[in-house]
């Protein structure tokens, strides 16, 4: 028997696979494809203080082995999420991670605090790395001082474990990771999307209405692996890894690099069954490479 379970701050995961924030909404649509209870956990779409409408369309573009998105944090706001989305997801019994976003440190604080009201959310993912909003978002994610400030504020406001989601756009990812660890982060999640652009030749202008968007998908996997590998050696908090995962071998690569669990984003769009398919394939993949448990593989690829 291969042991897929893993324990992280606030999260008792029966397997290390969860859908990534923003690539799964609040689960309703994919619940029509399979039993969400199969998932290790769920990372919800970003929540902000008030409802947000996001950016104009087009909001997505396809790239080689990847895609760009500039949704712009569209979400119904913290109140509605607590009232209708969290209870829906909670019925499936797996841990729920709420993705917290905002334009100001105060908004982050407010949203984080709101999740204290429910016992159905098990951890927060602090989205200081969204490249698709004018204010907040990625600027908190590329400046270690600001990132630490937001992390501290949210830690004080919340009674939940906080996973800070790092941006690959940061010049010094290890410095960022250390800064938020020192500020009290319980874990990290990495990586968010890399800022990119596509120019639409017929119209001779950026294809996305927002001009830039976040690059995700298999194209960015090597960057995610490198960053996790570097950060793992510099911090003592666990990492939830993501960036281009499409199959169980990718998951093992992330575990070896130092992730303790992983999230699957873009792959859901190509294959709505990406998460359950990976969960089904994982035991055999671990066995094939000589592992009896997920825990055993974490960080095993690191040469010291």
């Amino acid at each position, binding site marked *: 028997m291969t042991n897929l379970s893993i324990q992280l701050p606030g999260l008792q995961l029966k397997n290390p696979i969860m859908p990534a924030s*923003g*690539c*799964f*909404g609040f689960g*309703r*649509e*994919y619940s*029509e*494809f*399979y039993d969400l209870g199969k998932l290790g956990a769920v990372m919800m*779409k970003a929540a902000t203080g008030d*409802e947000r*409408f*996001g950016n104009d*369309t*087009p*909001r*997505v*573009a*396809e*790239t080689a*082995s*990847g*895609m760009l*998105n500039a*949704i712009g944090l*569209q979400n119904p706001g913290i109140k509605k999420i607590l009232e209708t989305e969290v209870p829906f997801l909670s019925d499936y019994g797996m841990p729920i991670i709420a993705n917290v976003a905002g334009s100001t440190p105060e908004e982050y604080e407010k949203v984080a605090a709101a999740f204290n009201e429910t016992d159905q959310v098990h951890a927060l993912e602090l989205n200081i790395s969204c490249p698709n909003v004018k204010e907040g978002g990625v600027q908190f994610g590329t400046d270690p001082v600001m990132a630490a400030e937001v992390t501290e504020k949210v830690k004080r406001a919340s009674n939940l474990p906080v996973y800070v989601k790092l941006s690959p756009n940061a010049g010094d990812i290890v410095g960022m990771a250390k800064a938020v660890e020192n500020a009290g982060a319980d874990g990290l999640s990495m990586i968010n999307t890399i800022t990119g652009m596509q120019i639409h030749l017929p119209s001779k202008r950026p294809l996305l209405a927002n001009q830039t968007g976040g690059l995700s*998908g*298999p194209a960015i996997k090597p960057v995610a692996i490198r960053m996790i590998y570097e950060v793992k050696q510099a911090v003592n908090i666990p990492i939830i890894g993501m960036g281009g995962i499409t199959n169980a071998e990718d998951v093992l690569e992330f575990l070896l690099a130092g992730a303790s669990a992983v999230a699957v984003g*873009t792959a*859901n*769009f*190509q*294959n*709505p*069954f990406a998460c359950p398919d990976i969960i089904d394939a994982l035991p055999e993949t671990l066995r094939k490479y000589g592992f009896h448990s997920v825990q055993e593989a974490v960080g095993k690829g690191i040469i010291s």
Partner: protein
Amino acid sequence: MKKAEEMQIIKASEIARDTVEMVLRNRYISQHAAPGQFLHIHVEGHTLRRPISIADVNHEEETVTILFKIVGSGTRQLAANRPGMSINALGPNGNGFPVLAQPGKTVLLAGGGIGVPPLYYLGKTLKSNGVKLISILGFQSKVDIFYEKEFSQLGTTFIVTDDGSYGGKGFVTDVLDDTGLFELYYSCGPGPMLQAMTEKLKGKPGYISLEERMGCGVGTCLACVIPASNGDGYKKICKDGPVFHAGEVSL
């Protein structure tokens, strides 16, 4: 539970310039498809699936027909598939055209280019309900025209081309004054055409089918939104649409 369906290609042929007609066999999709719904098709080597409308359904043969234009690398790759091969599709997706069931009423079908296909299955269904049909189909040029015969069998059909190489020269909306009376319209085509249509036919009940770049195709990623006309946020084209009441969204 929804599934991702394998659809076997029964027939594939180029029926107009860069325009491919493909007949696909799949029991589930053929039995459940409604006019105006679409397939979200996986294309080898591409991150995102491609949304393509259902153009016709044959319940007995358990097939659906799609018609698509080769405009980029995804549709080019899709066109390279040959009969006997299978493609993977999500579907039928979205909400299609509400099918009027009042015999004797007259409705207008107005399609532009690759917006024509979904109107065909709609027209067939309406006709079998005893509804009278008028169709206006717009194409770029003579070589782009398809399904003229098929639509003619449903009712009076006007063809216009941008360059006047066949039928009237001009846009679909230029013919609106010549069609005679109709009680309701259904339209699908490029954004500017739909804007012109809804503008000219303001006040008349109508349904329009919209296009937008999609991620998931099932309502989860929020890529394909369109502002609701009541100012209250967005509708999702892949899930709330692709068909909307003409007054429901602001184009």
